[in-house]
């Protein structure tokens, strides 16, 4: 039986190929995908919902458009996005997102080079946790300000103009244009400098820290806001937990709550990617499971992990 992490690795690569190059084969998965399928990639097979959200918010709020086509389209996109999140939860983050796979590649390169991971301290992790919500608010508010004439139209697609995915993902389609500073005017030049500075910092962060960008991802924040509706959840049976700490060590997002939770069953943390590595590494049977409603998709099993042993993510390949 294939190990879960190998299955996940395979699914990630298939989704990367479909979302990055599917457009060339006529695949069009729409504008409501809850992952970083970047529209700046010419051959993309689907589009990130964040770009659709930014584009539609401003346009749909014009008085003559609210009840017209753009307004209805905005509602339709949101409903479709919500449905995809309700059905698949954060599987989009841990199993589908192309930018997530890029980060996993960097992690794998680092582990092959036997470079130690550098992690954020709990204090700094707590400090940057709200950043993704700030970015989510920024990308929702700025289009409104443009529509009412307060902000320059050059701030159109405000998050995309600073997203490192815009600079890096098109490279895989042979398009390096977004690595250049655009000198048209001060606003555009400033945004492209910020984009490249953020990209440089993120590249370093993604190399030394697993899934570093996911700590700041506004799409993850948006998906987590819909958590009460999602059918896919990470569930723990606290009485069976032996406290080995494997889940904490293997987690790419360094979530401690799964390890520490002793009473409640719902351990779906805001930063969780539903990668299920914690469930795979848990040595106790049926303690951690990825559940879809009442059914278990994947659960921890003692025969899978063998004897109780410490799981070191770097020794196992990092991802």
């Amino acid at each position, binding site marked *: 039986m294939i190990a879960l992490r190998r299955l996940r690795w395979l699914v990630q690569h298939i989704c990367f190929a479909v979302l990055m190059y599917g*457009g060339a084969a*006529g695949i*069009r998965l729409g504008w409501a995908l809850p992952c970083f399928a970047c529209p700046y990639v*010419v051959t993309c097979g689907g589009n990130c919902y964040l770009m659709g959200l930014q584009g539609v918010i401003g346009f749909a709020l*014009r008085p*003559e458009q609210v009840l*017209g*086509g753009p307004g209805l389209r905005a509602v339709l996109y949101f409903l479709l996005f919500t449905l995809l999140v309700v059905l698949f939860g954060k599987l989009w983050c841990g199993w589908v997102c192309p930018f997530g796979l890029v980060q996993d590649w960097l992690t794998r390169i680092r582990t092959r080079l036997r470079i130690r991971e*550098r*992690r*954020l*301290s*709990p*204090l*700094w992790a707590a400090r940057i946790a709200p950043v993704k919500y700030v970015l989510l608010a920024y990308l929702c508010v700025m289009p409104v300000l443009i529509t009412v004439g307060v902000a*320059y*139209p*050059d701030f159109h697609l405000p998050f995309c103009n600073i997203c490192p995915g815009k*600079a890096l993902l098109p490279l895989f389609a042979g398009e*390096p*244009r977004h*690595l*250049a*500073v*655009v*000198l*048209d*005017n*001060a*606003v555009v030049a400033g945004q*492209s*400098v910020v984009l*490249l*500075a*953020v*990209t*440089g*910092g993120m*590249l*370093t*962060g993604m190399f*030394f820290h697993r899934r570093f960008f996911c700590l700041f991802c506004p799409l993850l924040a948006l998906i987590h806001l819909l958590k009460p509706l999602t059918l896919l959840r990470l569930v723990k049976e606290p009485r069976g937990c032996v406290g080995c700490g494997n889940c904490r*060590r293997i987690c790419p997002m360094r979530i401690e709550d799964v390890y520490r939770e002793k009473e409640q069953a719902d351990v779906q943390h805001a930063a969780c990617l539903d990668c299920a590595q914690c469930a795979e590494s848990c040595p106790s049977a049926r303690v951690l499971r990825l559940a879809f409603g009442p059914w278990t998709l994947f659960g921890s099993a003692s025969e899978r992990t063998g004897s109780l042993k410490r799981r070191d993510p770097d020794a196992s390949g990092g991802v």
Partner: protein
Amino acid sequence: MEKSGIPFSGLRRFMPAVIRLALALAWLLTVASPGFAGAEPTPSDRLRWRLDEQKRLPDGRVEVRLSLDRPTDFVEGTPVHARVLLTRWEYRQGRRLSPTERSVCDVVLPDTEGAYRLTVYGAFLGKLDIRGTARHNGRTLRAQLNMAVFGAAEESGKRPREAGNEVDAEDDGWIDTEAVVLAQTGREMRFVFREDVPAELRAAVYKGGTTFQAEVPVRNGIFAYTPPHDPALSAAGGYNAHLNYVFAVDLPERDEYFALTLPVYRSHMGHISYGLGLSVLGVSAAICGVGVLCRRKPEGCS
């Protein structure tokens, strides 16, 4: 040598040669110098379209305001016949389909306060092709304008506003500009004459309609030009600034003079710097890398 009594007699022997040399110099300085058309029409002697303004209306239509510049000695009230074509562009999976919808109108431009003006309303994404014709001093002056119109009205298929006698025509214009979807600086534009023209011609390029830029060869009816990047087109607030480029081709043996006008916009790729971008990327990555490697291992982390 015996001296002659006639003053400057020596010079007189060379007078015919001097006169011939003076005439040759005068020819070189005038007729042969670039931009001089001599008996041929100058920019101000042609009919040429000029895009004045285009703006999006609240209902999604695009309003395109045009003027037709005419020769200075144009007789007031001379009729100018214009044909307005709006061809809808449809894209599927990133590729433009063959044209399926075209609106054609023939109008006679009214002479409004000494100027010919035309306003066209485009309701859908497509190409606007306008051709004006007039007779002047025994010549046929033809002016063509092509531009993209990004109409986004809900209702498609609206006719151009200046509706006259609608003609169901199949013709596609005097000069083919299909290869130029949106004329931008820094990008080569290729044009093809649809009718038979002499194998070797010259096309004069005028920036802004009046400032001579260059002369390009027209071989077998095909010519190309790359408008240079223009800092004047850079402005905060978008890519809407344009410059009218006029391509003038003369067929004196037919007494026909073409002027093709293209609004040229600033290139989306024209003002980028890879060096600066990669420098910013590298410096940022280096600073963050140094910060990561030099920090102490935080407490509580294994």
